[in-house]
């Protein structure tokens, strides 16, 4: 570390010099070449200029993609208007608070009864530190961010089929997995049974690394020890004075570690898109959409259900119905159109785009996902179990429990994320009426935290296939469908271009929606200006 410091500093001053003399973009290229900043495709705020006088763009959808487009194209000088199906801005950027009502498809209505200040983020709930485009707009709009705790070593991993159904602390599951794997590898190295030649010197280095990584003893064994307990936790932790002597814990056996399958969950937070640091807006994810909506004001026409999209040589016309007032269909017209309507809905709206784009719109299934928020009378996970934020994983259908990343140590109530599901579990949750989803989440959660039975008060749930304005959580591409259709859904078709998470390689993340919008309006603007 000490060796690296001067080199790092000299690199930093080099970047700064390049930045000053050659401009930000060149500096960025230089940094990326040296593998310093290649963590996002968002390089700098977009700055479109020179919209032809009087030219206009109609934007369909006031989610993040649509609002980014309206904001940036408006700044460039275009006359912009958004049509939005709902009565609020944000789209899937959304939080449910006490006093809200939510009616899902099928007419199932929920009156949300959370206490003031408590909420459920039904959709996006966390922002990785490298999602620079959405973070840029949070900063721009004055949306305050706080840390989102993704990984918590004090949270649990739970399986109904292992350890008698008793939840295990994340720290012990990871320590035992790393420890035993390190021990096995160390034996392989010592016996020279690696499947490739390794020099004697490298072997020694590797053994050292394995001992450190796995908390192995001097014989490269993973055993009950202070070192191992320093990873997996103590029966009696080190203390002060006469109470100081620690008592180490027994690792589970190798066989139990393997067969318990709890290791399936410890990789979850290693993925690039959930690596710490992550953020959340103070007061709920929906704060971003709200701030954007306020910024755009009258530009957004709410409660407008688009029923047809037509383009010709002169422009684009959207027909829409006012879902509150009803009446005859109305039209909105502009020279160009940025369409962010999810493909799940758009595939049902008549639109005269070319066959390749239509095929792309029709080729995208929408995934299932469901969440349940549970208000508890007290924050027992903190008070009783020392869990402050983070996620507990379970093999029950609710998949996980996430503890609030805010209001730590506050006396009183809190809202847990009691279920966050995808795949078949989400399909099954969706098929239940809302009150049954909540009851199931309570039932499963009580197997991990028995306090649920006493403390549960009220819940809220959103199953995305039942959401009236998306009919699904997110576009679910496969390698095959991407190869066949992705470029076509990105293309500018006459006067229409698509944007949204479904037009990105970061599906189901807000960053995908924002980056797709920036890419789409950049290309559209270029097309307009260059004719």
């Amino acid at each position, binding site marked *: 570390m000490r060796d690296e410091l001067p080199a790092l500093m000299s690199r930093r001053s080099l970047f700064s010099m390049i930045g000053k003399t050659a401009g930000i973009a060149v500096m960025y290229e230089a940094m990326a070449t040296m593998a310093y900043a290649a963590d996002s495709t968002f390089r700098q705020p977009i700055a479109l200029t020179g919209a032809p006088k009087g030219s206009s763009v109609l934007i369909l959808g006031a989610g993040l993609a649509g609002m980014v487009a309206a904001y940036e194209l408006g700044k460039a000088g275009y006359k912009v208007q958004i049509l939005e199906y709902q009565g609020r801005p944000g789209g899937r950027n959304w939080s449910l608070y006490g006093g809200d009502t939510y009616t899902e498809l099928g007419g199932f209505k929920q009156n949300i009864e959370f206490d003031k200040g408590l909420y459920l983020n039904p959709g996006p709930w966390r922002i990785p530190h490298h999602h620079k485009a959405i973070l840029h707009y949070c900063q721009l709009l004055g949306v305050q961010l706080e840390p989102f705790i993704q990984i918590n070593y004090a949270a649990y991993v739970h399986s109904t089929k292992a350890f008698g159904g008793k939840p295990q602390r994340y720290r012990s599951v990871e320590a035992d997995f790393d420890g035993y794997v390190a021990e096995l590898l160390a034996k392989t190295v010592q016996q020279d049974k690696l499947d490739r030649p390794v020099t004697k010197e490298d072997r020694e280095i590797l053994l050292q690394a394995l001992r450190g990584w796995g908390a192995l003893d001097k014989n490269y064994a993973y055993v009950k020890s202070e070192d191992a307990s320093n990873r997996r936790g103590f029966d009696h932790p080190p203390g002060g004075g006469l109470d100081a002597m620690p008592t180490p814990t027994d690792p589970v056996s190798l066989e139990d570690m393997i067969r318990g399958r709890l290791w399936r969950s410890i990789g979850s937070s290693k993925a690039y*898109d959930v690596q710490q640091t992550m953020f959340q807006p103070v007061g709920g994810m929906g704060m971003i959409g709200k701030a954007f909506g306020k910024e755009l004001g009258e530009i957004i026409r709410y409660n407008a259900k688009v029923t047809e999209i037509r383009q010709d040589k002169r422009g684009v016309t959207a027909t829409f119905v006012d879902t509150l007032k009803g009446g005859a269909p109305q039209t909105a017209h502009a020279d160009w159109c940025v369409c962010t309507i999810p*493909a799940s809905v758009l595939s049902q709206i008549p639109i005269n785009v070319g066959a390749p784009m239509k095929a792309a719109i029709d080729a995208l299934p929408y995934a*299932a996902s469901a969440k349940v928020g549970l208000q508890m009378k007290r924050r027992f996970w903190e008070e009783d179990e020392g869990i402050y934020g983070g996620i507990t994983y379970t093999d029950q259908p609710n998949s996980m429990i996430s503890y609030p990343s805010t209001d730590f140590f506050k006396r009183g109530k809190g809202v847990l994320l009691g279920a966050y599901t*995808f795949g078949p579990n989400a399909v*099954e949750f969706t098929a239940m009426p809302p009150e049954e989803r909540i009851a199931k989440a309570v039932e499963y959660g009580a197997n991990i935290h028995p306090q649920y039975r006493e403390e549960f008060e009220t819940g809220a749930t959103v199953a995305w296939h039942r959401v009236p304005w998306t009919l699904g959580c997110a576009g679910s591409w496969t390698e095959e469908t991407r190869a066949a259709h992705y470029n076509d859904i990105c293309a500018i078709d006459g006067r229409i271009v698509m944007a949204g998470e479904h037009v990105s390689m970061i599906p189901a993340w*807000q960053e995908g929606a924002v980056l797709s919008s920036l890419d789409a309006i950049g290309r559209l603007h270029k097309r307009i200006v260059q004719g």
Partner: protein
Amino acid sequence: MRGLGLAAAIAPIAILATSAGAQFAGGYRYQTGQDLYTHICQGCHMPDGKGATGAGAYPALAGNPKLQSPLYPVLVMLKGQKAMPSFSELSDAQIVEVTGYIRTKLGNNFPGAVTAEQVKALRAQAVRQNALRPG
């Protein structure tokens, strides 16, 4: 990373950690047509089979003339259709059962039935669903 013997041991975790686009070995334990319908299909097509309408719509199965052909729902389940994901992880027997249910219950009374052999013969057209793990 894949080439290293050392990394092989932790590779399964890396696979599980892949978020968007991860393949899940999904499946449903229900066997009767009614159970399959109430735990899967009614999420969108609704308990009464009448579908629902918001910004877009889910088609009704009750009274839907497309169900006259017993093979039509089989193909939709195997391949998916527009925004509807495929349900090709259902077994041949499960697809037979749920096809029978939606064609003869929910107020429907369409004649004829599919066999597991017919479903099997259409498997070549099945699309494997990519169980998206959202952010």
